[in-house]
């Protein structure tokens, strides 16, 4: 009887099995490769006699932007089979496919007086189709690098699906001189180290500059009076003003709230350091923490609802999250070592931090609940992470060991790959990455 039942079930399943044999062949791919995407970026076609070598210069910046991400690999022009000599001419996909170019950036540039006009298209070579529509960018010749950065942002965004970060600036502390006589001053530059400008002199020590969410102002700490005080600097006019502080206190580690009107900072009274907030316009303050421990380095979540900060209330330096208006804090770091300088990702999904463990410093990231901690770097001294506007890249400062040690800015992808230094004329520390420019 059981045998009959078994075979009856088998007979019932047979049609389904037979049906499964029909239809398309089905396979599942779960393993891929992680390698830079080969892209061809020929010089922009000059249109008009005044274009000069602008096409080549812009193409080089675009190529450096893309290859600097570690996600793209530029195919050298010497390998090109065909050249883009006419922006309107159809693309010879076979020629680009033959050199394994998966993407092609073809553009043209024209110059009229001090006005420069760039138009370009992005092609998916193997699909034989254009990725998105063509774009045209216009500006002054002085802003040609920004035009190139914006062009690269578009290419990056269309291929990766993430917003770009090339047309952005970084404010940092420029350092010169030996460790025992180091001079520091605020500087601002393009994300790639170009167009550097100094915002302060080197007469006094400056620390921890922080961009506002709109990129028009910078908060920083200065020892100009002998005590640390917080200043607000307008980037456009380079005008500054000091934030009010209580006599006999030290204020430092400021950071803007996403709304741009509130500032959170650390205030030391006696031997106790707590986190406070201040309305910039009215000067009204609010105490957010009240413990005998040292609590500092506050950073807002992107929506402004929460604050992550470091505290040694548990006996060791750990990371905590509390509501933006103060209240009960929740510890999120439990690993071995000390955690500090937390910074919330612009995406809101990760928190970057500095970790000191077993005599080495690391830059790492973790989920906002403390899970999935990953250490991205390791060296004698890595500290001060800051997020790129798209939340994909982290910049930080690395200092080498010894009396002649030098602090340098580095960037790293959140995957831990593509660690590379940022070119600055002098040493650099305490970077703060601003938003994408308009």
């Amino acid at each position, binding site marked *: 009887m059981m045998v009959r039942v078994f075979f009856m079930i088998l007979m019932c399943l*047979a049609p389904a099995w037979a049906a499964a044999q029909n239809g398309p*062949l089905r396979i*599942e*791919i779960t393993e*891929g*490769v992680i*390698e830079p995407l080969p892209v061809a970026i020929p010089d922009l076609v000059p249109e008009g006699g005044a274009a000069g070598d602008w096409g080549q210069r812009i193409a080089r910046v675009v190529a450096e932007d893309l290859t600097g991400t570690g996600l793209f690999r530029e195919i050298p022009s010497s390998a090109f089979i065909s050249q883009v000599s006419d922006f309107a001419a159809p693309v010879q996909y076979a020629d680009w496919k033959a050199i394994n170019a998966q993407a092609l950036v073809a553009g043209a540039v024209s110059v009229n007086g001090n006005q420069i006009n760039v138009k370009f298209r992005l092609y998916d070579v*193997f699909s034989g189709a254009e990725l998105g529509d063509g774009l045209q960018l216009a500006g002054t010749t002085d802003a040609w690098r920004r035009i190139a950065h914006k062009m690269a942002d578009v290419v990056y965004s269309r291929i990766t699906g993430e917003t770009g970060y090339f047309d952005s600036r970084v404010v940092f502390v420029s350092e010169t001189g030996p460790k025992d006589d180091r001079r520091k001053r605020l500087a601002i530059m393009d994300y790639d180290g170009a167009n550097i400008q100094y915002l302060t002199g080197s007469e006094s020590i400056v620390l921890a500059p922080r961009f506002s969410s709109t990129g028009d102002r910078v908060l920083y700490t200065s020892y100009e009076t002998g005590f640390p005080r917080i200043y607000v600097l307008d980037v456009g006019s380079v005008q500054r003003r000091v934030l009010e502080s209580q006599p006999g206190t030290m204020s430092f580690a400021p950071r803007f709230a996403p709304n741009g009107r509130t500032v959170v900072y650390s205030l030391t009274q006696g031997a106790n350091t707590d986190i406070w907030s201040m309305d910039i316009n009215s000067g009204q303050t609010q105490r957010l923490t009240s413990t005998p421990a040292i609590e500092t380095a506050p950073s807002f979540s992107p929506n402004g609802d929460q604050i992550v900060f470091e505290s040694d209330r548990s006996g060791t330096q750990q990371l905590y999250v509390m509501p933006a208006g103060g209240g009960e804090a929740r510890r999120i770091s439990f690993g071995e070592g000390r955690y500090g300088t937390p910074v919330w990702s612009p995406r809101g999904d990760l928190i970057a931090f500095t970790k000191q463990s077993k005599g080495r410093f690391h830059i790492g990231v973790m989920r906002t609940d403390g899970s999935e901690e990953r250490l991205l770097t390791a060296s004698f001294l890595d500290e001060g992470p800051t997020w790129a506007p798209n939340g994909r890249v982290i910049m930080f400062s690395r200092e080498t060991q010894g009396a002649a040690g030098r602090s340098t800015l580095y960037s790293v992808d959140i995957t831990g790959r593509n660690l590379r230094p940022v070119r600055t004329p002098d040493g650099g520390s305490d970077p703060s990455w601003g938003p994408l420019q308009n």
Partner: protein
Amino acid sequence: MNTGQVISGIGHAGLIGWVLFGGAFQSEPLPFEVTEVSVISSDAFEAMIPTGPSPDTATDVALPVQPDVEPDPVETPTPDEAVEAEPPEPTPAPEPDVVPEPPAPEPEPQVADDAPVQPAPQEQAVVVPDIAQRPVPRAAERVAPDPVAPPEPEAAPDDVQQEAVTESDTGESQQDAQEATAPEEATTEIVTEAEEPAGAPTASIRPPARRPSPPVQTAEPTPEPEQPAQEPQTQPESEPEPQTAEPADRTDDVNDALRQALGGADDNVPQGPPLSAGEKDALRVAVSNCWNVGSLSSEALQTTVVVTVEMSQDGKPVIPSITLASSSGGSQAAAQQAFEAARRAIIRCTRDGYDLPAEKYGQWQEIEMTFNPERMRIK
């Protein structure tokens, strides 16, 4: 697709035959014989040796009597015994067993004299009649003459449907064409039970066959139950006839269209057996080597996309046919990015065509690839 139908048909026929005529009754008789023989001891056997001659006398007595009785029991089972009439003569012993009831009263008084010795041999003899009785149930074949009639009415339903349509004289020409299509569907339904896609195109033909049914509705109750009975019995033999007859135009066109739509051009496409695991792995590895997720966003790395692609016989994908069938785990923008990466992967590594067996082209003419980046995510 045809391979699946053949395998399914053979499998069904074999299983049905085995269940009906196979060892459904094999489990009972074995233990019965062995236990009875093992019970007898050597002493009992020796004791039985001297009693041996007595049964000889019994057989002597029985032989003259039984042949007289034989014709009577043979007459009762008249229809089937024509074949078995000869064997009873050489072996008189089984004959009384075959007809236990009528001869039983007569030999009993004779055997009663030898009662103490005979019980044991009777048990051994009991085993034989059990086996011999099986032919009696096979005498159920007597019923065969009756069933011989049913197969005709079963085949009749095919004819009945045609007659029923002819009864509705309205729309004669159309109804004839529709009648011819109906038996095709019946046969293809059998196929559809075994293999769905092959039956799919034929299923679409059914609606026109039902249209003429309204005038036949008076006769519906009978054909409806008959049709399901016909389906399992009437085999594809009936298919070619109606196809060649009338609905050739419609069915051919429809089937061609469906074949094209389903990508299953069966005429010139070598189907072959399904791809082996090794052949599938080779294709999977080839695509994997070109699936570059390095430039994908973190959201796109959490998006699984299902991509369909039609292949040419030289193993190259038909690029315009690469489409995003479905996605899960991410936004539409992320799905688009993941799809473009998948499309590049399919196209990139196929300059010389994928290494796929040409004799199985029908098996990989259309491929559905699922790109699951779970293992490639940033962790």
